[in-house]
């Protein structure tokens, strides 16, 4: 070590070391009582350390042996004090940066010397000092520490204020954009840190001195500096500019720590900067938030988020503002859709909802870091405007109804069929809206209606898309929600197999004659419990051609499945008939018709003209069904009314039009009737009410069955919990159903508002 520094030659070092050793051991001789008092004249020659020329002169006098160690220690201390007061005198001539330079120079020299002196006095350290410390004496340190203590007490205490002033003014210069000698500050920091000694254990160091004399004044100065700067800046610049400035400043300060400060300052410095730069101006920032939202300044919003996210409770007011803003945006979008009256495309509505959601979803992701609280605000807002907007005003179930309709339009074969990948994406989007829908049961009802129609009429875009949608719903709402939908699919598959079997059976059983007169038919067997379909509302006498086919199938089916009941859903059946009577066509026209229309038209195989009552009698259709169907046939000019232009009414007669003409060979007459649609929607709403009652009651019974006894309030809460994934139940409705169950003796009221289950 000595060689490395090459400051003091071995001989001098050995001499000094031996002197210290001898001095201390002589004390030992005394204490062992040998009476031999060895003289030690302590002339320690000046050690030369590095380039420094500090001189340590230790005048040691002949003393009582047991005091010798202490004497040496005390004199060393006094010598250091003298040296330091010299240093202090010299320091008076320096100021500012000069003072810093001086301090650092002296400090380096002093500490290097201290290291050597410590070595030389090692013997003292090991024995006398150690014993003193072991005995619990305060204010006795090993020699190196003694140097530091002296430095602190005799020099540092006198100059630290000036030194700090210099440091702070240097930092301020840097903050003002000047270049400074950073290493100086770094050295000062190190020096201050070294001076931190643990009172109780001198071998450990603490940051106390550094904190008290460096950190505190530094942070105070920082605070004052930024208070002034930010006040001035805000007064002269826009909030947006200020945010940029504040952010830059925060980064700068963070970098400063890494450059030349002690890491311990990080927290205090950051907190101070945030308090002064952000918290103090948080109201101003927040006021700007709405403006930025209105102008969609994503970058500035992100900056504001970053700033305010760093202070306590900084974002909470923003969340509320954001939520309100999104809700207003959503409501406005819906308002726009609604201006065109009731008859808008469901797509338009869903798109409007989606657009708002997507826009703010992106904002949350990009500007707000996808923070979960903002996601929640977004969700809250979306739930609000999806379920409560102008279009939903008449009925809260409007949103799910429209969404289901839109879904149907996507999944139904049509001219606007989307690409497969595109379609999948749209289905995902539908699920986004679906997530916010509160009346999920309403969606389910409409969806299953539409699905039933798509399946029965074989008008699905693709099975894959249907399956994908159902699995999405299942994922969102559970098995029960899609149970029936899946059963519908199964029925379709079973029907397919059944038809194949039926064909085989027919091939075996029928003779040629039968086959000639047979109508080619496809049958679908749909389980009553799973399909949202009702028996026909009108009696119908099917034409004999169909009846025969139907009966034959029935026979086949009952052979296979004894005891089952089949109901023919004529209103959903359709067929094609060829119009061989029209002579002017090369290829006979084919009419695509409903079974009812078929029933009407086939009557004309026997005669060319029929009166209204004859048709009515032959088909037994009710007027509500018969009239619109006749109208369609009249409108398509398949039939001609007599008198001409008459409406279908008892006095009208109908004649087959032999001069029928159409551009297409296949003519679709099977058009859904407007009034039917309306009735259907109304029916759906009605069944929803019924289903909700059942759902509530079954939930109540389920809960009570497991709990046996329960407080009324708790029961209501739990019912809400169980049911809310389907629809948000109203408390009066729950109470009504509790009462209904009481009346049915499922449950009874006990004392103290308790309900108990009757087994």
């Amino acid at each position, binding site marked *: 070590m000595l060689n490395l520094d090459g400051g003091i030659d071995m001989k001098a070092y050995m001499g000094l070391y031996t002197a210290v050793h001898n001095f201390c051991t002589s004390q030992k001789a005394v204490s062992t009582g040998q009476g031999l008092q060895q003289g030690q004249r302590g002339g320690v020659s000046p050690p030369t350390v590095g380039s420094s020329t500090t001189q340590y002169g230790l005048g040691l006098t002949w003393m009582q042996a047991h005091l010798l160690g202490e004497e040496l220690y005390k004199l060393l201390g006094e010598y250091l004090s003298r040296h330091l007061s010299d240093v202090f005198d010299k320091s008076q001539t320096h100021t500012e940066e000069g003072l810093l330079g001086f301090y650092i120079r002296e400090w380096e020299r002093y500490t290097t010397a201290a290291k050597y002196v410590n070595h030389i006095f090692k013997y003292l350290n090991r024995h006398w000092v150690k014993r003193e410390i072991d005995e619990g004496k305060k204010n006795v340190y090993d020699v190196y520490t003694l140097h530091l203590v002296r430095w602190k007490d005799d020099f540092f205490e006198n100059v630290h204020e000036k030194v700090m002033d210099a440091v702070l003014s240097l930092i301020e210069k840097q903050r003002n954009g000047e270049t400074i000698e950073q290493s100086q500050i770094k050295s000062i920091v190190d020096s201050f840190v070294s001076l931190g000694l643990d009172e109780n254990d001198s071998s450990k160091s603490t940051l106390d001195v550094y904190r008290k004399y460096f950190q505190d004044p530094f942070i105070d100065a920082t605070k004052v500096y930024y208070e002034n700067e930010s006040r001035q800046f805000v007064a002269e610049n826009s909030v947006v500019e200020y945010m940029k400035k504040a952010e830059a400043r925060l980064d700068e300060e963070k970098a400063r720590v890494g450059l030349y400060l002690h890491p311990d300052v990080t927290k205090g410095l950051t907190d101070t900067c945030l308090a002064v730069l952000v918290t103090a101006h948080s109201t101003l920032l927040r006021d700007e938030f709405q403006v930025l939202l209105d102008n969609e300044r994503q970058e500035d919003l992100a900056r504001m988020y970053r700033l305010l996210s760093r202070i306590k409770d900084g974002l909470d007011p923003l969340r509320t503002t954001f939520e309100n803003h999104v809700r207003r945006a959503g409501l406005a979008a819906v308002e726009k859709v609604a201006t065109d009256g009731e008859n808008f495309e469901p797509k338009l509505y869903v798109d409007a909802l989606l657009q708002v959601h997507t826009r703010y979803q992106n904002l949350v992701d990009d500007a707000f870091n996808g923070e979960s609280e903002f996601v929640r605000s977004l969700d809250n807002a979306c739930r609000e405007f999806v379920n409560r907007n102008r279009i939903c005003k008449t009925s809260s179930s409007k949103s799910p109804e429209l969404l289901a309709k839109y879904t149907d339009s996507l999944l139904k074969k049509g001219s606007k069929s989307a690409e497969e990948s595109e379609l999948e994406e749209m289905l995902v989007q539908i699920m986004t809206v679906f997530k916010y829908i509160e009346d999920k049961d309403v969606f389910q009802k409409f969806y299953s209606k539409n699905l039933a129609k798509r399946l029965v009429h074989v008008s699905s875009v693709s099975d894959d898309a249907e399956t994908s949608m159902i699995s999405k719903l299942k994922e969102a709402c559970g098995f029960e929600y899609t149970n029936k939908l899946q059963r519908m699919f199964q029925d379709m598959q079973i029907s397919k197999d059944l038809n194949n079997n039926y064909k085989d059976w027919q091939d075996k059983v029928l003779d040629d004659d039968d086959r000639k007169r047979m109508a080619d038919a496809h049958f679908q067997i749909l389980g009553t419990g799973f399909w949202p379909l009702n028996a026909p509302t009108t009696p119908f006498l099917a034409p004999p051609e169909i009846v025969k086919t139907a009966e034959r199938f029935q026979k086949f089916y009952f052979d296979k499945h004894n005891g089952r009941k089949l109901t023919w859903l004529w209103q959903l059946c359709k067929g094609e008939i060829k119009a061989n009577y029209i002579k002017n066509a090369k290829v006979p026209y084919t009419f695509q018709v409903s079974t009812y229309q078929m029933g009407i038209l086939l009557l004309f195989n026997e005669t060319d003209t029929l009166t209204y009552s004859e048709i009515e009698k032959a088909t037994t259709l009710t007027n509500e069904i018969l009239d619109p169907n006749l109208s369609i046939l009249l409108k398509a000019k398949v039939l001609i009314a007599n008198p001409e232009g008459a409406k279908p009414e008892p006095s009208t007669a109908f004649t087959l039009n032999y001069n029928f003409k159409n551009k297409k060979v296949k003519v679709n007459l099977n058009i859904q009737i407007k009034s039917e649609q309306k009735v259907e929607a109304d029916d759906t709403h009605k069944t929803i009410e019924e289903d909700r009652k059942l759902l509530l009651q079954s939930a109540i019974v389920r809960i009570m069955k497991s709990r046996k006894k329960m*407080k*009324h*309030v708790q029961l*209501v809460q739990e019912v809400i919990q169980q049911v809310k994934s389907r629809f948000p139940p109203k*408390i*009066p409705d729950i*109470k*009504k159903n509790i*009462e209904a169950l*009481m*009346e049915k003796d499922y449950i*009874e*009221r006990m004392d103290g*508002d308790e*309900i108990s289950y009757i087994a």
Partner: protein
Amino acid sequence: MNFLNDIGVQLDEVTCLAIAELLQSPSMGEFTREEWKRGMAGARCDTIPLITEHAKKLRERIPREPELFRRVYRYTFPLSRMQGQRNLQFEIAADQWNLFFTPDHGGVAWNTETTPWLDWWIEFLEGRGKKPVNKDLWEQVEVFMRKSLEDEEMKWWSPDGAWPGALDDFVAYVQAKRGKGSEMEVE
């Protein structure tokens, strides 16, 4: 009937129903031997004068002892039902309420300073179409009556409480009626 006359109890007073409750009469004016014996033994009555005495006591106790009152009141529901019916016809229920909730026939008066509760209640039910009264509602009306006598401002009531819907609606009805009343005063 003669029996009631003998023990000095009128048909149209609550005491009569209390006797029925005591003897667990299955329907109006009908008693089973078993229950009769048990009831009489329980009240330590075996002679007409003793029963008369007991009836007199009951008459005094009913308005004063809420528990006894409630027991008799609740017993009245199955007692007054028509054969084979689950619920009490509105007319009968109204008669019984008039019996129980007025002091003239040995009941408790359901009136407070600001509110003629009983009259409003009957009026309210008439307005709703005189629907039959089920057991739960019957029993809860008595609880409601006690509560409303305690605090006629109905601070104990909350829309999320366990009251039957009919009583919830009645609260709204009473509040609306009072609202109108106070408005008139203001004018």
